[in-house]
């Protein structure tokens, strides 16, 4: 470890002034309006304090004045890159409160769109990560494929970003005709493109230099800070709510074959020919977090394929959305789902009326961004975007 990477080295001989630098809230690489106050000595970052709240919209408070069905659009705007997963989390928790089972077909439909949206979200994460490291091209390659997913979603629900598609009780409408073929075709097209992404970034020598060994987040620390999702799995902790979550959530994935993407005994579960882990990479560094996301894209593609078959085979309807005046039984419910960025939890307390008494969201990015100050200590200024980018945060979800 070189001197500059050594967090214990706090002073150089040349007495330079420490500088406080505001990175954000208007900065090209802070993914929205995150504000990082960096304490730097030259290029070396001595400390980083994330400041949040620039995108606070009182979503949770608003939730206490709206029926669960009405609050769905607000969940869209939390992680706006994975609205389907947000919708799903909220729908599931309301259904859990109501003990409302969704028909078989609806279950597969939800898996289908949620995993597609996971692909879209990870593609954005990959593209913007390239941008953070100064490579513009992967961004457009990623958005090109994401556009196709958005096209599919547009066919499903008419919206390209804020879908409000999965609602408590079911979905707003069944899939249109021919959609399954379109989706299958898209997966066909995406398959070879993933190799391009690996060539552009994952196995690029400069990319490896910039990410391997940078921002190492040990598994223990990740757990202590409550990190979840790819950030946690990138640190080697075997945790994925799709397998380990509550039955109310995991039952969604009953009958699906997938392996949790985590490095076990030095190996990732690989069913494809993907670039090997470079020698410089340390478990828990930026490269691993990135790599987990890239593998999850493929994992989600597999799940989507299975869901396509199961959906086509399933009979019946996709469930009926609850009415606006649907009385909610007094009680409370909490459920965490595996959203693309981590475990997204919704909490709901009701008093018997149609409107919840209390609504809370447990944001995955909020927990993930909290490690920034730990990871950025002693790194170089250029590592800050690399670290923040590898955490893949969305401020809409943090600030709510």
């Amino acid at each position: 470890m070189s001197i500059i990477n050594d967090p214990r080295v706090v002073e150089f001989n040349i007495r330079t002034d420490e500088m406080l630098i505001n990175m954000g809230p208007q900065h090209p690489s802070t993914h929205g309006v995150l504000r990082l106050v960096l304490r730097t000595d030259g290029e070396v970052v001595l400390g980083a304090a994330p400041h949040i709240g620039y995108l606070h919209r009182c979503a949770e408070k608003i939730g206490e004045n709206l029926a669960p069905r009405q609050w769905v659009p607000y969940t869209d705007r939390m992680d706006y890159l994975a609205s389907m997963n947000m919708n799903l989390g909220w729908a599931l928790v309301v259904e859990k409160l109501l003990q409302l089972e969704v028909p078989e077909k609806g279950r597969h439909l939800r898996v289908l769109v949620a995993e597609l949206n996971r692909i879209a979200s990870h593609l954005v994460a990959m593209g913007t990560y390239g941008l953070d490291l100064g490579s513009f091209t992967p961004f457009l390659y990623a958005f090109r494929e994401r556009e196709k997913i958005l096209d599919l979603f547009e066919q499903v629900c008419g919206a390209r970003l804020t879908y409000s598609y999965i609602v408590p009780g079911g979905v707003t409408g069944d899939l249109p005709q021919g959609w399954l073929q379109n989706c299958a075709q898209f997966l066909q097209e995406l398959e070879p493109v993933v190799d391009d992404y690996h060539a552009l970034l994952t196995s690029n020598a400069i990319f490896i230099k910039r990410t391997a060994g940078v921002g190492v987040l040990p598994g223990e620390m990740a757990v202590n800070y409550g990190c979840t999702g790819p950030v946690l799995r990138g640190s080697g902790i075997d945790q994925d709510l799709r397998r380990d979550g509550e039955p109310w959530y995991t039952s969604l994935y009953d009958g699906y074959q997938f392996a949790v993407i985590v490095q076990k005994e030095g190996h990732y579960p690989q069913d494809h020919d993907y670039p090997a882990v470079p020698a410089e990479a340390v478990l828990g560094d930026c490269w691993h977090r990135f790599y987990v996301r890239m593998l999850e894209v493929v994992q989600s593609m597999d799940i989507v394929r299975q869901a396509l078959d199961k959906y086509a085979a399933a009979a019946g309807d996709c469930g009926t959305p609850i009415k606006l005046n649907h009385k909610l039984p007094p009680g409370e419910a909490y459920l965490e789902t595996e959203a693309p960025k981590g475990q997204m939890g919704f909490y709901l307390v009701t008093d018997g009326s149609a409107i919840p008494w209390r609504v809370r969201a447990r944001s995955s990015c909020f927990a993930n961004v909290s490690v920034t100050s730990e990871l950025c200590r002693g790194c170089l200024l250029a590592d800050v975007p690399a670290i923040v980018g590898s955490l893949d945060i969305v401020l809409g979800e943090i600030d709510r």
Partner: protein
Amino acid sequence: MTIWAATDWYAFFFLLFALLACGFAAAVLFTSNIVRMAFYLTLSLGATAGLFFLAGAEFVGVMQLMIYVGGTLVLLVFGVMLTARAPFLSLRPRSGEWIVSLIAGGTLLFLLIASAFGVRNWRTASDSGPLPLAEAQTATAVGAGLTGVRVDRLNRDAAGHALSQLPHTDSGYLLPFVIVSVHLLVVLVGAAYLARAKVRRRSATESTASVEG
């Protein structure tokens, strides 16, 4: 048209570069902002390089640009930036110092200028006239001089071909060149040693505590 014909372009360029060099040198003297001083110094030295070109010393001129302006001054600017805290940014000399030094400087300047015009040989061009500049391109000669061969001391025939060998005792500037190379190496090592980054390490607990603040 007459004004064009009357213009001596050599004098014009000389005057231009000379004024730039002297003017910015004065600016260095009279500004108290250290960064501006560095900037003016750059321009002054650059203009001096122009004078060197005019005097036919191309190689020296380029050396001036490369080593002085491009190297030494960048180094200086680095130093300025490393130490440029607000209180030192403009340290003004005391007025008493100004008066004394201006008197001394003025006297020195007067003496120097008087002596510059005092020698007849300096004041006039030689009778044979100056050499055309095309024949004063000296980069090769300078290079040869540094490697130990003084080509300008060769005896020539009328056509300019070398006639005889140089005395073997004349090694040109080879020895100074070697010495200065070694000197430069020593100096660089020494400077790196002087200004090296001494690292003080704190214990792990202390470092965690310090970063919170």
